[in-house]
């Protein structure tokens, strides 16, 4: 029975590792300027984690194979080096490994979160609510009009609670259901939630950030590839959560200019 356990363990280990080695299931192609840092960190971690995983399971399997059917005369032996050797080994090998991962991982994190957006980044506001995202652009005046939560009304399509009569800054604001951005242009995303916790996840952009009620949060990123990508919510926000999504439309600058003009005319 011990030998069957060992063989099963080896087979499970191989079966688990093959899809990773074959790159069967991998993240979609990165379309951001910071994403390569995350991808590199991920593949470094995959190598180290993979070695640990395979080594640990194989050694476990080998020892089960060797010591599960011993003859009555066989003496109990100690692992060479004893506990102290293993403790030192764990501290040195694993300690160094995780410290290295930690340090390099911090660099990637810092590149995303500790660098401020450039001054000419395009500001886009996103509001999350059950179960849709709405985006707002400043319009020609370069200002967002103030939000009046009591004026939010889905039936009149006043998703942001804008006061078109009294706030001059609101008049040219453009509210859309799809997020259009120009390619290779930094975007400053201003995030707030209307009702409860949501999240903003674009796999290709390597970006995920929660919306927290009562907090105004910021992200910034640059998309480098034209295309349509899905923005999905990853925080359970109610029955319609599975269907809460919007599209990120990355366009060339002329296409974007035409798109925003068209959106403005539809307000």
């Amino acid at each position, binding site marked *: 029975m011990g030998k069957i356990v060992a063989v099963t363990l080896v087979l499970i280990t191989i079966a*688990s590792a093959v899809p990773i080695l074959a790159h069967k299931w991998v993240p979609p192609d990165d379309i951001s300027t910071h994403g390569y840092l995350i991808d590199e960190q991920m593949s470094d971690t995959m190598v180290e984690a993979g070695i640990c995983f395979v080594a640990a399971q194989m050694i476990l399997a080998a020892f089960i194979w060797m010591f599960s059917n011993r003859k009555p005369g066989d003496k109990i032996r100690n692992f060479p080096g004893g506990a102290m050797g293993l403790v030192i080994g764990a501290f040195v090998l694993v300690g160094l490994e995780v410290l290295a991962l930690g340090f390099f991982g911090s660099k990637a994190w810092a590149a995303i979160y500790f660098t401020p957006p450039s001054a000419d980044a395009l500001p886009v506001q996103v509001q999350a609510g059950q179960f849709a995202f709405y985006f707002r652009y400043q319009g020609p005046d370069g200002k967002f009009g103030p939000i009046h939560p009591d004026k939010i009304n889905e039936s009149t399509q006043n998703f942001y609670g804008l006061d078109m009569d009294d706030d001059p800054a609101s008049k040219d604001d453009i509210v859309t259901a799809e997020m259009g951005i120009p390619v290779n242009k930094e975007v400053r995303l201003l995030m707030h939630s209307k009702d409860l916790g949501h999240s903003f996840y674009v796999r290709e952009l390597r970006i995920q950030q929660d919306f927290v009620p009562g907090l105004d949060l910021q992200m910034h990123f640059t998309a480098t590839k034209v295309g349509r990508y899905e923005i999905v919510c*990853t925080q359970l926000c109610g029955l319609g959560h599975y269907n809460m999504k919007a599209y990120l439309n990355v366009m060339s600058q002329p296409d974007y200019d035409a798109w925003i003009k068209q959106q403005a005319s539809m307000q």
Partner: protein
Amino acid sequence: MGQTVWACSIAIFSIGQLLGSLNFITTTLDLRAKGMTLMRMPISTWAWFITSCIGLLAFAVLLPACVLLILDRVAGTSFFVPSNLVVSDQLITQHSGGSPLLWQHLFWFFGHPEVYIAILPAAGIVSHILITSYRRPLLSHKVVIYCMMAIGFLSYMVWGHHMFISGMNPFSALVFSFPTLVITIPATILTLIWIGSLYGSNLQITSASLFALGFISMFVTGGISGFFLAQPSIDVYLHGTYFVVGHFHMVMGVAAIFGMFAGTYFWAPKMFGRMMNETLGKIHFWGTFVGTYCIFMPFHYLGLVGNVRRYSAFVDDYLAPLMPVHKFITIAALFTGAVQLIFLYNLIYSRFKGEAAPDNPWKATSLEWTVTSPPPWNNFGGKHPVVYHDPYQYGIESSSGDFVMQDSPERIQTVRDDKKLP
């Protein structure tokens, strides 16, 4: 209303856990048998003791957090609800100034230690069963206990790793990331000691030891995916995907349940006085072990592709190519669930019709195996046992075979901490 009842029940549960932890800590410290020094306690008892210490501190935070939540819901306070929220076009006016992040901090300050509350007793049970099955002591009994203590201690410094993208200050993500990575060290030492002690042992394959060995495999697999999630930069991509689901089900879900199964097969004879069926036990193990890998390894792959969790249906285009994987997982889950019926049948059938259990079927050394199966009234039938050495005297030559019971005054060769005989 339902949510309020739920919060109240969690609060009551917290009170129960607090009292239970206190009871266990005081009993462990005050009511040990004569000669049972702390270092002579079985590792399983040590694990319960450390778990109780963690529980005492963790539930002490969850209880007031629940009280605050209930107050928010019924008494009009605003600990967690900010102003200007709009739900169904209605402005919420009765709340202002609260912080949902505060709730997340309070919850995860409890929530992370809770993970170790789930896994440490299993680790203790598994250590105990492994020693009995290896027929030798672990390479170091003390290192295992210290590692469990270290994991318990570190569990209070890492709650923020559940909140990397929650909107808390991004600097704190780094502060929480390092202790999380450091937990790898005691966890690795534990694993290396379990595997290293297997070397040169005389492994006995029983249902209990199979589940204990399966625990090691699961613990390693689930622990290693923690390397990814402990790093905030990678968590940005993997947070909220199936990768997280695969990770915690492996390490604290299935591994902990493997500990429970191992413990059930091991101690059922003592509890009920009847042996469980070993053949059925082994079939149960094979189905569960292979089934579990078939369920939870693919979760990691789905997570790598960015398949989000918590979806009741997939209406996306990009998830469509992954549907075969989901189908495979569903079939594996139904299969693994069905295998548990074998366990249930075995447990109930053996309880009434099983073979009568001898006092010490596993040739184990700890005190519960010195009494009849099931134990007499008052556990020891009114007598007070006296303990002469630690419970890990295996792999030696003695009058009883290759082991010496804890209450046997027999002098043994491998004396480790027997200097102070009672």
